[in-house]
């Protein structure tokens, strides 16, 4: 279902120059920079000490290379001015081990803190981040990661689109032939490929409403076509005074859906994706879940909402996995939080599996829906930061 302004993705494609070509050759490789780099600090954490090589750094991407010289497992934090807000942390640094805290810190006063033994009070020191206009250049590593993420994501979308076309072809034939049981069985399977790339499909503002509009989305006088029109005809039980479509009408709607799917597939072949658009696609798919699927509003007639839910999550996971190496370099805490919360959400979805698919939305009790909604919130909030973090 169309919920995102169609210009969203396309304008990004137009405006954001590809990072591969946008960067000069003078970039500083910050990930392997020397100790002379003002944004790189070394931290020696002991059982009673926490030595930081510098007490200030210019704003930007700061790297603390932490060495645990003590016998206790340690943690290292950057804490906000009020002494409470943890800006970034690395945990579980074993004796003798090294770890890196990477944080994009704006100018301000902070504390550095070690917590030997991981309990009790921490050993703190003042740390000042000074204002800076310098733009951090993109490292060669990062450029490579970006290029790989772009290539993989484009391939994924193309593959899903191809499968969508194949399954839709099969589906519309079954529907036209009056093989309704088989059509009903294939409906959520085919739509899985749509929902996995929904944010991309929606960026084509004229195609999306023709293919995925729900009855409630129409204005008076608008013609209703696409997946959900056929859905109602296949599951008319809940409809009032419903007149089944004739064979000729079926053919019209079926051919129209197939034609639009073919057009979509052709357009998708030509698309490429800036890395922040991939990230935005990931959070966009979760927004689709939050607004339509977890509420049971997407598949009113078939109640196959959880199939769509899973497919949105699949697509979001793939997009996240593509940019994950970038996130791990820039904000490792965010990367691990997102991974945990994707896993937690998947566990809840897995509990609702039924055979090859999922339980119908109407069979879910209130508690289950609330749990799913909570897990979607838990994931979506940090996911909304993803695009801003991966942007070069």
């Amino acid at each position: 279902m169309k919920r995102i302004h169609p210009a969203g993705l396309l304008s990004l494609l137009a405006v954001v120059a590809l990072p591969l070509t946008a960067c000069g050759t003078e970039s500083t490789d910050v990930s392997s920079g020397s100790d002379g780099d003002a944004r790189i600090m070394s931290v020696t954490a002991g059982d009673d000490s926490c030595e930081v090589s510098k007490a200030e750094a210019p704003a930007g991407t700061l790297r603390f290379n932490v060495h645990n010289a003590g016998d206790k497992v340690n943690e290292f934090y950057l804490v906000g001015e009020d002494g409470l807000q943890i800006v970034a942390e690395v945990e579980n640094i074993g004796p003798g081990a090294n770890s890196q805290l990477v944080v994009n810190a704006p100018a301000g006063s902070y504390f550095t803190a070690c917590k030997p033994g991981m309990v009790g009070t921490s050993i703190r020191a003042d740390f000042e981040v000074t204002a800076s206009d310098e733009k951090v250049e993109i490292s060669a590593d990062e450029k490579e990661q970006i290029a790989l993420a772009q290539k993989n994501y484009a391939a994924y979308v193309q593959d899903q689109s191809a499968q969508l076309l194949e399954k839709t072809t099969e589906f519309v034939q079954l529907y036209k032939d009056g093989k309704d049981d088989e059509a009903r069985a294939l409906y959520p399977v085919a739509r899985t490929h749509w929902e996995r790339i929904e944010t991309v499909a929606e960026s084509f503002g004229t195609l999306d409403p023709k293919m995925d509009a729900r009855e409630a989305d129409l204005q008076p006088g608008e013609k209703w076509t696409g997946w959900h029109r056929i859905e109602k005809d296949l599951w008319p039980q809940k409809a009032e005074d419903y007149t089944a479509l004739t064979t000729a009408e079926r053919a019209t709607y079926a051919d129209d859906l197939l034609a639009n799917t073919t057009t979509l597939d052709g357009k998708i072949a030509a698309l490429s994706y800036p890395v922040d658009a991939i990230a935005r696609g990931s959070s966009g798919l979760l927004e689709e879940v939050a607004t339509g699927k977890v509420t049971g509003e997407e598949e009113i007639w078939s109640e196959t909402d959880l199939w769509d839910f899973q497919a949105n999550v699949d697509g979001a996971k793939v997009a996240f996995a593509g940019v994950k190496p970038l996130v791990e370099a820039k904000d490792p805490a965010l990367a691990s939080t997102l991974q945990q919360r994707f896993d937690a959400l998947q566990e809840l979805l897995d509990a609702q599996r039924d055979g090859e698919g999922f339980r119908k939305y109407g069979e879910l009790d209130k508690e289950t829906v609330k749990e799913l909604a909570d897990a979607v919130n838990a994931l979506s909030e940090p996911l909304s930061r993803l695009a801003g973090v991966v942007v070069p």
Partner: protein
Amino acid sequence: MAALGVVGAATALGTHDAEDGVGSLRYPFQGAHQAGIVTPAQDRLHFVAFDVTTDSRDDLIALLMRWTSAAARMTQGKDATPAGALGGSPMLPPEDTGEALELEASGLTITFGFGPGLFRDAEGRDRFGLADRQPAALQPLPHFSGDMLKPELTGGDLCIQACANDPQVAVHAIRNLVRIGMGTVAVRWSQLGFGRTSTTSTAQSTPRNLFGFKDGTANLKAEETAAAEQHLWVGTGDDPRAAWLAGGSYLVTRRMSMVIETWDRQSLYDQEQIIGRAKGSGAPLSGGEEFTDLDFRAGGATPAIPVDAHVRVVHPDFHDGARMLRRGYNFVDGSTDLGHLNAGLFFIAYVRDPRTGFIPVQQAMSRNDAMMEYVKVNGSALFAVPPGVAPGEYVGQPLFAPGDSP
């Protein structure tokens, strides 16, 4: 929010900016007790109860730290975080939601409480290693006759009470604290309230509830320091398992839906007999003025204050002198499916020990109070409210401090 800095006249508890106005009223977040209890009751409430969804003690503590930081800032009229609504990267969602930009603190207080589930969840699991510090009095409230509780409006592992004189300031506070908590906690229920139904300071006049009566005339007031020590604050030796709670209190919430339409059809005489006070002046039916002591013997065999009148049933004289600090609000959540006003009193009371200070009073009320015919209780919860926060500490820190188990 508005710039701070110039501090003018300080009232007993709060501070006004020099350019005085209701909006600029600020209460300190830190102190011996949490703000929002004896603080003069503000006009608006947003109250939220959470389920804790994590099993990680570290995540729970990290959340309490972030909440403390955000609450300390917002009560002083600032954004929830230093980057705030506009100061972060334009490529990231703003850290503060922004609807309180330009609004002042408006007397905002933010008060945190811990429910029984924090210590032992519904399955009896001790998720956070806190079970041996669970206060003996912090157990789910017993069933009171007539209660029609909805699980989705009842209980909670954590709660936050935000009170302010501007509803948008209270809602902004809860909205941002909820957002900060996502992934660690999930909202179980929340309640908006308006028109405080109690006075917590002798400087305030007694307001009216939606029955149209002055409510909470006999409430415990901030100025009654000795009474507060006796009835409100948990003492140092009260509970050896829960030394961390000393200086705190217990918070009871009851969502009391009023059967408004039926109430409105009662005669003035009957309404006054049910409550036990004159509707206009608030004076007891035994005579005098609003603050005149109640005389339960007046009238002899047919007492002036009927035996089932609300003020008699709940009066401290019949409950070993038990008093509570009431801090409730009226609520109207639109209308019901039947077209009735979905309204009532969101009852909030703070007590030193609910086993003596609240439960017996509620039991008497449920059984004997004529008013209960016009009330349906559909939400209920009990929380332990930790003591105030010292600078650099997070709320509830003593609960998590390492140390000997009792």
